[in-house]
């Protein structure tokens, strides 16, 4: 029996008198993709920020690898192998690919230089170039600006970086929501590749089709609570869509818009 890498029980988060999370429980195993679905305001981003250590939780338990997380900060969780890739906020467009790749984790390319340490860009360029090539993205050279990459390639760069630095859990915040079809499938393919390497992935999205394409389990959030976690064989995309919207809304919508809207 595998042990969960992340386990949260009855996690609550209050901002003043606003209850953003009202008792969330979830577990995550290595080698699975857990999709976190929910409408705007369901508490998805609060939950991932809590998992990433940006917000401390108000109550409940949060365990990584069976151990309680005390005093979470983004740094401690990153060091524990939990890497979060935020939509649009995980790369710096004006900086080169290799500088981005090692940003905040420069120790690997630091070289002794008298009493100082300098960065070894030859090594950095090679590692970044190879990492990008491995996921099927051909770049001219690792010293070109990230701004020249497409949105999907930037997401992949951020994920590749997390994987390279030993992430055990990837938290992906809407990695496909701003992307076109081909770009999205590039990211989805990479998610499957990460899963095959026994990483655990939390995939946050609005898009049930993207979720269904790669997910093993689906947790639905609604108004700060979970509406349950479902295995892939228990649900269809239509079920997920309905649950995500709280059931009722889509029915009303289909009455108003006619049958076609069911396939929204």
């Amino acid at each position, binding site marked *: 029996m595998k042990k969960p890498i992340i386990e949260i029980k009855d996690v609550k988060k209050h901002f003043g008198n606003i209850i953003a999370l009202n008792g969330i429980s979830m577990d995550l195993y290595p080698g699975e993709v857990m999709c976190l679905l929910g409408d705007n305001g369901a508490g998805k981003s609060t939950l991932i920020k809590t998992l990433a250590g940006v917000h401390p939780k108000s109550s409940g338990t949060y365990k990584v690898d069976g151990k309680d997380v005390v005093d979470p900060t983004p740094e401690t969780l990153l060091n524990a192998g939990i890497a979060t890739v935020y939509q649009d906020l995980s790369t710096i467009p004006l900086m080169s690919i290799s500088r981005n790749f090692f940003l*905040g984790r420069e120790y690997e390319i630091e070289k002794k230089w008298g009493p100082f340490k300098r960065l070894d860009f030859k090594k950095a360029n090679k590692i970044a170039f190879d990492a990008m090539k491995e996921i099927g993205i051909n770049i001219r050279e690792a010293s070109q600006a990230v701004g020249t990459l497409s949105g999907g390639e930037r997401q992949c760069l951020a994920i590749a970086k997390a994987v390279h630095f030993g992430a055990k859990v990837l938290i992906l915040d809407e990695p496909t929501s701003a992307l076109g079809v081909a770009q999205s499938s590039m990211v989805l393919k990479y998610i499957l590749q990460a899963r095959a390497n026994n990483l655990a992935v939390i995939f946050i999205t609005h898009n049930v089709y993207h979720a269904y394409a790669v997910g093993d389990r689906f947790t639905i959030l609604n108004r700060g609570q979970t509406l349950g976690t479902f295995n892939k064989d228990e649900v269809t995309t239509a079920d997920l869509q309905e649950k995500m919207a709280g059931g009722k809304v889509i029915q009303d919508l289909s009455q108003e818009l006619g049958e076609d809207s069911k396939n929204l």
Partner: protein
Amino acid sequence: MTDERLSAEPFFSRFFKKPEFTSVVGVVGVFLVFFAIADDAMFNLEGVLSWTEQAALIGILAVGACLLMIGGEFDLSVGSMIGFSGMVMAIMTVEYGVPAWISIISAFIISCSLGFLNGYIVVKTKLPSFIVTLASLFILRGLTVAISRMLTNQTLVGGVTEASEGDWLASLFGGEAFTGLFLYLADLGIIEKFADGTPVVTGIKMLLVWWIGLTIIGIVILRLTKYGNWIYATGGDEQASKNMGVPTDKVKIMLFMATAFCATVFAACQVFDYGSADAQRGLLKEFEAIIAVVMGGALLTGGYGTVIGACLGALIFGIVNIGISYTAIDSDWFRVFLGMMLLGAVMLSNSVRKKIMRS
């Protein structure tokens, strides 16, 4: 497997996209212009030293201003900081008889603390540094005038040279370097001599040495260390940098301290070179430093630029500022040219950035 869309990049387009591009073009351009129209005296040893000194003054400030601008912030209090720390050194040395080296070190400690305060206020309040340091500009200038008048009854303190005679640290700022070499060159007849046997040019002013030294340090930090990576990242996208574990607040505070440090180097060179401090010194220097940095290809919005570019920007500034007096043009026109060059440089570097993001 290669992507057919990735054609090899021609050399010129590669060069065009370097941040230094605008400044290299500018330096070559002003050289050509002044070669054509200026008196030959501009390019003999004395002439060269006079405009490199001017470039060095701006260049010392430009190193700090450049790093800070790449980090996404401005420091408008640089000029006031020059007046303030110069006055600290002069009053301590002349009025209170403190050894010059203690006065200098004290001035550095005080100015770096003020730089820390600037940075701390900016990162804690999240107010634009433009406004915060505009306030410091007035506060520091006012303090300099008020305190010097309170303690000495005047706003100009002289007699520094006599009071700092033989001081080891003072000579690192006010003295000249390579005097032996220049004497040797004069003996060889390469440099002209006055009638009494002293060379026309006795050495290189220390401020030139400081300019070169600070520029090299700046280049190394920015290009080769992780701190350089953090500076680019902080100015490029602060939130993303935070997400990736970059201590952006610390980076910014350090950069404000660096600009204060550079301002104090400038002040020390002036005080020990001229032998006096004036409460009005350094007026408008913050803008001149920013002009040099922008002409060097840095973006006002942060995240892009190089120290070598800023250094070349300072060189352009020095050449035009001093060179104009070697031409038939009245030097009243200097500011007109400066403003036009600034505008041209900004438009050029703006198009460069667009090109980088598109390629």
